[in-house]
């Protein structure tokens, strides 16, 4: 409960900061227009008045808050429409990409992490570790470009965008397939960039617990290796992985910006990039608030998960002295 209240306060704080920062950033939406001799200064000032840009900062903030309450999240100058629906349609695409990527990453990462921990310091583990180090050290952009090049060469996977040109004419199943095929490339990039860290965290957590006295005691009582691993080790080793999971959720909206821009996936990322460059004030602020929301919710979920998985946190025992 306390955390939820803190979250709301945080969101407020973020929005205020946003306003201040964008205010400090040079330039405004109408700069380009000003340079255009065909548009008269009166038109510009008229437009400015219309969008309330000539009012003082506090008033603008107040009006923006009103708009939040009404569900609009402000008004986009470039698109001439309320911000919220714009954001939401793009955010849906981003989420499709990131959630798919996240599921795949964890589906691959957790078993590999557990497996290499169980065989740790043997050849399997060493291979995985080397592969990991490699992946972690290669920046995401390089992975993106590399896979793009591969895709173009091999012509197996569509490159760019979310849908083919004839998307509308396809059947429902066909449309689904189409989107999925387009999803492959950006998802692959995200998975390759992220899986190494998951494997590392899971492996480290499991290795540490494997050495613990209670695992050795379990072995001493004749409990088999497999059962030990799943019933005794994993629940304890899960904690660092769960924290990471929470962080992954937190970055669902914000982590894929680079990939979206590189592959032309119509998500939140490219929209925000455009808006920032164009100084489309409320769109930018709206986008940031949206991402911040996800971050906070993600952290809350992580905390809740940790609560349910580790009874020590739940029952809050104070150690007998």
């Amino acid at each position, binding site marked *: 409960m306390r955390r939820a209240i803190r979250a709301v306060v945080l969101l407020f704080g973020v929005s205020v900061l946003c306003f201040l920062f964008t205010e400090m950033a040079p330039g405004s939406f109408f700069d380009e227009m000003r340079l255009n001799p065909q548009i008269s200064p009166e038109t510009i000032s008229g437009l400015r008045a219309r969008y309330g840009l000539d009012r003082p900062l506090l008033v603008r903030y107040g009006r923006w808050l009103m708009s939040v309450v009404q569900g609009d999240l402000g008004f986009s100058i470039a698109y001439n429409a309320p911000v919220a629906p714009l954001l939401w349609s793009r955010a849906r695409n981003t989420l499709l990409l990131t959630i798919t990527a996240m599921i795949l990453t964890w589906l691959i990462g957790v078993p590999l992490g557990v497996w290499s921990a169980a065989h740790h310091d043997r050849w399997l583990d060493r291979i995985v570790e080397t592969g990991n180090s490699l992946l972690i050290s290669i920046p995401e952009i390089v992975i993106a470009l590399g896979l793009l090049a591969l895709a173009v060469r091999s012509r197996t996977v569509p490159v760019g965008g979310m849908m083919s040109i004839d998307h509308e004419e396809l059947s429902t199943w066909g449309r689904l397939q189409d989107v999925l095929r387009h999803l492959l490339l950006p998802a692959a990039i995200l998975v390759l960039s992220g899986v190494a860290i998951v494997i590392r965290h899971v492996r480290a957590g499991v290795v540490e617990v494997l050495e613990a006295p209670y695992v050795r005691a379990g072995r001493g009582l004749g409990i088999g290796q497999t*059962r030990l691993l799943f019933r005794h080790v994993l629940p304890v080793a899960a904690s660092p992985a769960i924290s990471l999971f929470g962080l992954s959720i937190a970055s669902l909206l914000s982590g894929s910006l680079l990939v979206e821009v590189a592959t032309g996936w119509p998500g939140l990322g490219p929209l925000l990039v455009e808006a920032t460059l164009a100084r489309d004030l409320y769109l930018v602020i709206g986008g940031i608030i949206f991402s911040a929301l996800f971050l906070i919710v993600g952290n809350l979920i992580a905390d809740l998960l940790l609560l349910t998985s580790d009874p020590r946190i739940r029952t809050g025992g104070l150690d007998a002295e």
Partner: protein
Amino acid sequence: MKFPAEPSCDKTVLVHRLSVTYLSDRAQPVRALDQATLEIRPGELVGILGESGSGKSTLAAALLRLLPADARYDSGSIVFLGLNLLALPEAELQRLRGAKVALIPQDPALTLNPVLTVGDQIVEVIRAHIRSTRQDRRTRAEELLKEVGFDQPRRIYTAYPHQLSGGQRQRIVIAQAIACRPALVIADEPTSKLDASLQAEILSLMREISQRYQTAFMLISHDPTVLAGFVDRIAVMYAGRVVEEGRTEDIFRHPLHPYTQALVRLCSRYLPESGTRTRFASIAGEPPSLSDPGAGCPFARRCPERMKVCTERDLRETIPQPSHRVSCFKYDQ
């Protein structure tokens, strides 16, 4: 719940001249056990008296065949319930551990899984060895909790280790060890991490269990008084060797080995004192380095009765009194 019947043997455990070396540092292998010999009869209570580095924990681990990967069995044999432990495959050993031989480890705070309820942890042991239904196991676990002294087994079943006191945790670990009615229970310093006042309770609980089920106990301790009220025989260990072994009264009344004599003298700390700030009886020097033991008797350096021969010849075991053996040159002239 049915427990599998035992083949009857005259000895539960027979360790014969067992030597174990740790190879963790190639340049300096550590000789943890040196020709150790010990036997335990069914239902017998045997004490291992030894300080850190004496090899007592290695002996316990060897009986469970749970030595670390870098340990090597140099020579000797371990026969448990008629089975040659050194020749058994891991699958067989797993069937023995917890079912026929169980360990009560030293620090229950560390050896209980923090995220499982204590009841579930007892059930895990049963599940590993006895075919049973979930309900059976649960009932048996609650029975065991009652046996080890809990008045409210149902409530304790759902508790987590961190919610219990040190003494309670020790009882849980004992419940785990006796869950499958093993033939031998090894208790490694069961009271050293507990308050002195709990010691008597825990020991009497173990004695009860031994009498009720004819379970043999191997109690390891560095404190002779802990063994005094509990075991029938004591084997004294030093630097990986069993240096003396005999009935408890003989060890206390007529200790033969100078080290044993010194250990018994240490017990004067328990005697009431007339003045305050009295010095403690102590043993001079430090335990020997196990990677470089030198020739002869390992205790020679610290021995008040050291003779020239003590650092020259190899030690032999002699039996100067009935049922009382010792490895000391004083008795080997």
